């Protein structure tokens, strides 16, 4: 566990050192949503139905944009080699990095989402459900994303290839989550879809560290 905490602390420290980083996923998120509003100029009635999707797409893009940082800088300065030849299981390191990535990008977005939901015209309850889907869903994005980054980090300019790899894996999360909010707004029970999301979370958190660490070994060699 010592190592888990050390790497977690290290990654958070590195993020805080560039103070702007801490704020940025959130700011980016807000900006994307504002862009939608500006570009679309949709009527409030239409907007409400689109709101969950807009928020979720913004969250997804925000995660995607910051994904590349997860391993690339460690790769470039040789820190990744050092991690791989360390005594510690690489998958534990990866898990720490996934958690750090989530704290830096997913958590702020999750926290601010209900407010944006209200701004887009959602009811208080619907905003709360939106919040819960993000709370369960954003860690999945970080976990699945780690596999994509680990696979592409050896390439010098892999960040766009990364999107192609990761987006198809993100789509189910997006669909289920925005569907959940819509279902709720339509007045149906959402227990089933929330439990599917939970299952995805458990699955991705338990499998992706292994896949990522295998991919990392490959990328470094």
């Amino acid at each position, binding site marked *: 566990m010592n190592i888990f905490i050390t790497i977690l602390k290290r990654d958070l420290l590195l993020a805080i050192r560039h103070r702007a980083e801490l704020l940025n996923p959130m700011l980016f998120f807000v900006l994307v949503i504002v862009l939608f509003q500006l570009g679309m100029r949709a009527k409030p009635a239409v907007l409400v139905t689109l709101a969950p999707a807009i928020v979720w797409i913004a969250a997804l893009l925000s995660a995607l944009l910051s994904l590349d940082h997860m391993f690339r800088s460690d790769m470039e300065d040789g820190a990744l080699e050092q991690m791989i030849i360390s005594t510690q299981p690489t998958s534990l390191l990866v898990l720490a990095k996934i958690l750090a990535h989530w704290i830096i990008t997913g958590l702020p977005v999750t926290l601010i989402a209900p407010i944006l939901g209200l701004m887009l015209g959602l009811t208080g309850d619907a905003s709360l459900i939106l919040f819960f889907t993000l709370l369960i869903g954003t860690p999945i994005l970080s976990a*699945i994303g780690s*596999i994509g980054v680990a*696979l*592409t980090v*050896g*390439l010098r300019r*892999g960040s766009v*290839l990364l999107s*192609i*790899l990761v*987006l*198809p*894996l993100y*789509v*189910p999360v997006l*669909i*289920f989550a925005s*569907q959940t909010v819509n*279902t709720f707004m339509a007045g*149906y029970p959402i227990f*089933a*879809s929330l439990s*599917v999301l939970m299952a*995805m979370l458990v*699955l991705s958190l338990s*499998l*992706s560290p292994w*896949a990522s660490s*295998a*991919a990392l070994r*490959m*990328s470094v*060699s």
Partner: protein
Amino acid sequence: MYRWFHQLGSPPTFYKWSGQWLPWLTFVCITLFVVGLYGGLVYAPADYLQKDSFRIIYVHVPAAWMSMFVYVVMAFSGAIALIWHIKLSEIMMLSSASIGASFTFIALITGSIWGKPTWGTWWEWGDARLLSELLLLFLYIGIIGLYSAIEDKRKAAEAVSILALVGIVNIPIIHYSVIFLNTLHQGPTVSKFDSPSIETSMLIPLLIMALAFKLFYIIVLLMRSRNELLWRERRSQWVRNIIKGTGNV
């Protein structure tokens, strides 16, 4: 079992074995295609609702089935390559990717060609099945893209195996989402072609075509694998023998 597996996994044996089988397979495959196409395009009666446009089913459905089947094959051989380091299954996986992508592409194209007369639109965004097929295409593209982007091909193969495995976890998820979403939102189309029980005279050619497609896949797979195998082993003795035209494999 394991020994058999291992022996077949040895390149020269595989090369010899596949060389013997290929002509037979090709023969059977062509026969099936001829029979199936005749049955489908000529023998089967025209659908009373869709007229002759339904006949594209004989390409669309086999291609759609194959698109998923190939992915599963690919992921499994990827797993075998990762765990037991059997070169041959690595090659199988790599050769499958572009074949699978082609099947997916064909399913998408024929589907939307079919959609125009039946649904009146090329593409229906709301339908989960179309969507999952599109995502499958993206998965294939991702795999091919990753393979071509990594220069060291041994590493590339490893990377692709991992990706294929991860992708297969995604397939049941996509599948579930189809069922799940449709119970909520009555999909406007899916019910249309799921329920009608198909007439035997239409079904049999369809099954024959499906078999023909499967054989076609196996044939292309074998040919591509042989090709790749020769290239990879180009400096080993048995390949040199083949090139020289002397000696047995």
